[in-house]
């Protein structure tokens, strides 16, 4: 397939997927030309309106935090009680949010329609599920109600506080990058950390199991290529839950030089001793899973010969990690051994319900 002829043939077949055919340089008939004048003019007018709207929107975003009123929002149909999926792994398949029993993968159950929501985290008592849809976060409650937490900008990740009452999330708009915390029932978000004058992304907040800290991945611009692209250096950092005491736990390296230079999907182990994350390197192997101690020491790659692994999620006792490779859900021991494929197809993110089947995970006061 890597013969140039095959490559050419493949590229032309793939380009056909775009659904348009190249136009030969033949004269354009007058009517078509006139229609296209209107089309292009309309497109340009639309772009102008969007640009104007974007400018106004940016001004609005810079002055107003992305607050969301505590409105009920759209709801899903009341479905399977969340208590039935304690210790199960939640994922999206087709149009439903599904849960599967990791010890008996033949046992699966629908939690109801997903409405485009990808599950990313459970509250510790398993009563609330955090999900993302179209760049915003939503909370699904056990009664089937669904509440939108964020609006505007792009939010990629969030994490519940141990008591499930608050959610930390990242938010970006243009070169503005911030971490917020918000009541999981909605309301006005509180700024936790802003990139300020730094050219930095603040992403993937993970609330510590003891509630005292929030870890995150920071990507700082350290240079620019000769053709004008930014180059980032990534760090695993942490900040106190009140927004003070920001500090770096580990330098993950430059994205153009380090296999861990493109970390994402940061999750804290249930006992608070380790982090897991994935990294889509541009210099090393394709996306891999890593673990690192909570103090930033002993970074280890977990996946061997498992390219494209991502979306790590810890089991309730921290002994195993679920992840997605392609569209297959896997679990493996927390040291990277005993990799077991579980099921497919799985779309996007997953979240392992943190309540053990015996129900021994209690809410913190």
């Amino acid at each position, binding site marked *: 397939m890597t013969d140039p002829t095959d490559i050419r043939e493949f590229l032309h077949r793939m380009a056909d997927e775009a659904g348009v055919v190249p136009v030969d340089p033949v004269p354009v008939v007058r009517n078509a030309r006139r229609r296209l004048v209107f089309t292009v003019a309309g497109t340009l007018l639309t772009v102008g309106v969007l640009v104007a709207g974007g400018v106004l929107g940016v001004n609005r975003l810079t002055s107003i935090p992305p607050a969301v009123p505590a409105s009920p929002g759209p709801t899903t149909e009341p479905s399977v009680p969340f208590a039935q999926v304690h210790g199960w792994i939640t994922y999206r398949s087709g149009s439903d949010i599904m849960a599967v029993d990791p010890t008996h993968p033949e046992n699966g159950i629908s939690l109801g329609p997903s409405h485009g929501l990808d599950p990313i985290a459970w509250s510790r008592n398993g009563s609330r599920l955090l999900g993302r849809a179209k760049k915003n976060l939503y909370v699904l409650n056990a009664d089937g109600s669904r509440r939108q937490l964020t609006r505007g900008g792009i939010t990629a990740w969030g994490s519940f506080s141990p008591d499930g009452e608050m959610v930390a999330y990242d938010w970006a708009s243009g070169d503005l990058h911030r971490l917020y915390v918000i009541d999981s029932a909605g309301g006005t978000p509180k700024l936790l950390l802003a990139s300020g004058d730094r050219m930095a992304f603040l992403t993937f907040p993970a609330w510590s199991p003891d509630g005292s800290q929030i870890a995150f991945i920071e990507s700082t611009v350290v240079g620019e290529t000769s053709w004008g692209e930014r180059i980032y250096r990534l760090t695993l950092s942490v900040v106190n839950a009140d927004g003070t005491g920001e500090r770096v736990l580990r330098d993950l390296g430059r994205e153009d030089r380090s296999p861990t230079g493109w970390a994402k999907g940061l999750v804290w182990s249930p006992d608070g001793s380790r982090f897991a994350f994935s990294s889509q390197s*541009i210099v090393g192997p394709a996306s891999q899973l890593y673990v690192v101690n909570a103090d930033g020491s002993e970074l280890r790659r977990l996946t061997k010969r498992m390219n494209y692994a991502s979306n790590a999620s810890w089991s309730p006792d921290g002994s195993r990690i679920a992840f997605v490779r392609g569209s297959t859900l896997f679990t493996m021991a927390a040291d990277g051994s005993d990799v077991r494929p579980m099921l497919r197809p799985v779309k996007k993110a997953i979240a392992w319900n943190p309540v053990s089947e015996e129900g021994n995970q209690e809410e913190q006061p």
Partner: protein
Amino acid sequence: MRGVARTEESERSKLAETYVRSAPGAIRLAYLLTGDRALAEDLVQEAFVRFVARLHYLRERQAVDAYLRRTIVNLSKNYFRRRAVERSFLERQAGQRQPELLDPDVTAHEAMRGALLGLPARQRAAIVLRYYEDLPEAEIANILGCRPATVRSLVFRGLQSLRQIPEVTR
């Protein structure tokens, strides 16, 4: 005044003609670089918006094509640099994979597609420009802002990476 109006109409006509002629090819190129039809259309639209600003300076067809090609490659690279967007893109790609496809041709095509889109942006661009657009190394180097030797290296490394995907190797 009538002359000015005629000139404006002429400019609009040229713009429309350029759009008709170049947009489909531009979308195909953007699609190969992104693997996403909607994103490809967005990039091409943005490229044309930029092109309008340079309409007076780009009279020859070759110059227009070169400008659009370069703009699309740069826009696709810049777009991928926006991490949040790229995250959603990668996840979307992961969601689209269908590993249970039984048709060997389809499986090989999907594997190749995944492998191509998994390449670093510059390697992908170099391979697409070399084997789809059939551009000479010097022109690819001009688009990517590097030396021709670097283009050779990018193409070589890209092909090497593609060979490491088991499903791609026959």
